[in-house]
């Protein structure tokens, strides 16, 4: 997704003179081409994220369209108040780009895991939250920020995320993408766990359960029209995210369900509310949290059986 982001941003910068990229001293070599192609529009702001966000807000208020780039916790939590006061409160059109969503940086330890960012970004007024599901969505999502007027958080995976979409799909911020059709249940995923949701749907299909798979790439605002259709047509929604179960997609859909009057089963799969003290790959942590295709398929199957019994 990282390279897809840079591809999208380069295309955007080509047609929009206002695009400026700031990095918090991360992304060795990957921005060289951008910097060479757009002189004066790339800045390494150094290891100083609070300042970087304030500077980006100032740039936006000065008529530019800044993107700030860092690893998720440093791009969001380290400088949270600057994001709230300087970007969101001022309605400054800044895109905060976090690389390393979920356990993408698993072996780096819990300081580098990003399991709270969706929750925290989602509760900021004026903030739009976009978590692309694969490299294609990352590129299209980056392009879509070009016509977005307000603050936006773009949560990326890392380099080498698996593809779900082989070709471009219609993409607009706030409109979820139906990746796979089915009416027995809906697997609604956000971020880089999307390929796992698709794999779980394939396993369930072999057991005779037709799953609709939705990439809810925009967590705020939620695509409520699609949620309504999923509730009515499928009767059961399972949210899947590589993020804490507190405050992320599952919470957002639960809030929608409580307020909407829709009737359907809802189960949320994500990371438990605790730090990891162990070393591990992204795959290892997904295993530990039950976020593999096999484990998700089993849990969905059991929940559906339970629902039929009720």
């Amino acid at each position, binding site marked *: 997704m990282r390279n897809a982001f840079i591809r999208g941003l380069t295309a955007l910068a080509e047609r929009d003179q206002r695009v400026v990229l700031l990095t918090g001293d991360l992304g060795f070599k990957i921005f060289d081409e951008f910097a060479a192609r757009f002189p004066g529009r790339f800045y390494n702001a150094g290891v100083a994220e609070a300042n970087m966000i304030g500077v980006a807000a100032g740039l936006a208020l000065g008529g530019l369209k800044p993107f700030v780039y860092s690893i998720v916790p440093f791009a969001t939590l380290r400088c949270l108040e600057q994001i709230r*006061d300087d970007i969101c*409160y001022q309605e400054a059109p800044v895109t905060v780009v976090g690389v390393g969503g979920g356990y993408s940086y698993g072996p780096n330890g819990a300081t580098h895991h990003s399991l709270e960012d969706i929750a925290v970004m989602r509760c900021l007024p004026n903030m739009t939250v976009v978590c692309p599901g694969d490299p294609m969505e990352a590129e299209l999502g980056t392009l879509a920020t070009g016509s977005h007027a307000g603050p936006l958080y773009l949560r990326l995976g890392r380099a080498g995320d698996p593809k779900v979409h082989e070709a471009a799909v219609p993409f607009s911020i706030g409109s979820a993408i139906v990746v796979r059709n089915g009416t027995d249940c809906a697997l609604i995923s956000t971020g880089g766990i999307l390929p796992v949701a698709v794999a779980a749907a394939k396993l369930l299909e072999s057991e005779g359960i037709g799953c609709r798979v939705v990439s809810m790439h925009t967590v705020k605002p939620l695509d409520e029209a699609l949620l309504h259709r999923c509730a009515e047509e499928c009767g059961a929604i399972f949210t899947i995210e590589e993020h804490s179960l507190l405050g992320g997609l599952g919470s957002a859909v639960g809030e929608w369900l409580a307020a909407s009057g829709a009737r359907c089963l809802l189960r949320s799969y994500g990371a438990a509310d605790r730090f990891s003290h162990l070393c591990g790959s992204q795959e290892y942590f997904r295993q530990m949290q039950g976020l593999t295709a096999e484990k998700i398929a089993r849990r969905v199957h059991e929940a559906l059986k339970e629902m039929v019994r009720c």
Partner: protein
Amino acid sequence: MRGADSVETRARAIRAKIVRMAHAGKTPHVASALSCADVMAALYFSVLRIDPAAPQDEARDRFILSKGHGCMALYAVLAERGFFPEDVLEEYARDGGRLAEHPAPRCVPGIEVATGSLGHGLSLGAGLALAAKIREQSYRVFVLLSDAECAEGSVWEAALFARARGLDNLVAVVDYNKYSAMGATSPYLEPLGEKWRAFGWSCVEIDGHCVEAIAAALWRVPLEASQPTAVIAHTIKGKGVSFMENDLEWHYRPPNDNDLRRALDEIEGHQP
């Protein structure tokens, strides 16, 4: 400049508005606003290239009150300079009013950014100054910080950044009134000028209550090519109202009717 239009006269009018607002709104921070009244008068009546009739003019100089709690001084000077009618000041600290105890974004004409949490303004200012460089515009950016605010790490992050980018269109003015909310600032700030110089900024120290000295220093910026400028304005917390000067009580206490009368006597009684 002397007489009714002098900067000193404007500063007195600003002080009178400040104490009236604090009294009517029953709010704290009157002394913080008073300490920067002369700097604000010099900026808005001598230094800034601004036009109250065109508050969004792209070429305007930008002013950021990073010490957002001193906003009574900002509201007062904007009214005095004609950005909005005087009666708007009555909305200060009123339910449903536009003038909160820390300024909201674009709440009234002339307010560039929201501030209130300390340590944000210099980064915002650096961004606006960098935007001017990128877009080849000639406006300058003036940021007023409190001395206590200089304990925020982000101030020094911004100082590093501005120097590295050669933002000679950025000016930090420190309202050095020697007090934080709980005590003296000098023990941890000094030597303050050396700190700014060590971060690669040009730095001058001036009497922050001498409007000629303030204007003279600000007219000279940038002091050196490719360097941002820090102007350390030595001030007195509560300046202009003798019983509020150097007394931390007035960081918190709103003036009562009697305080207001005595304060206005002092401010308006001292005609040149």
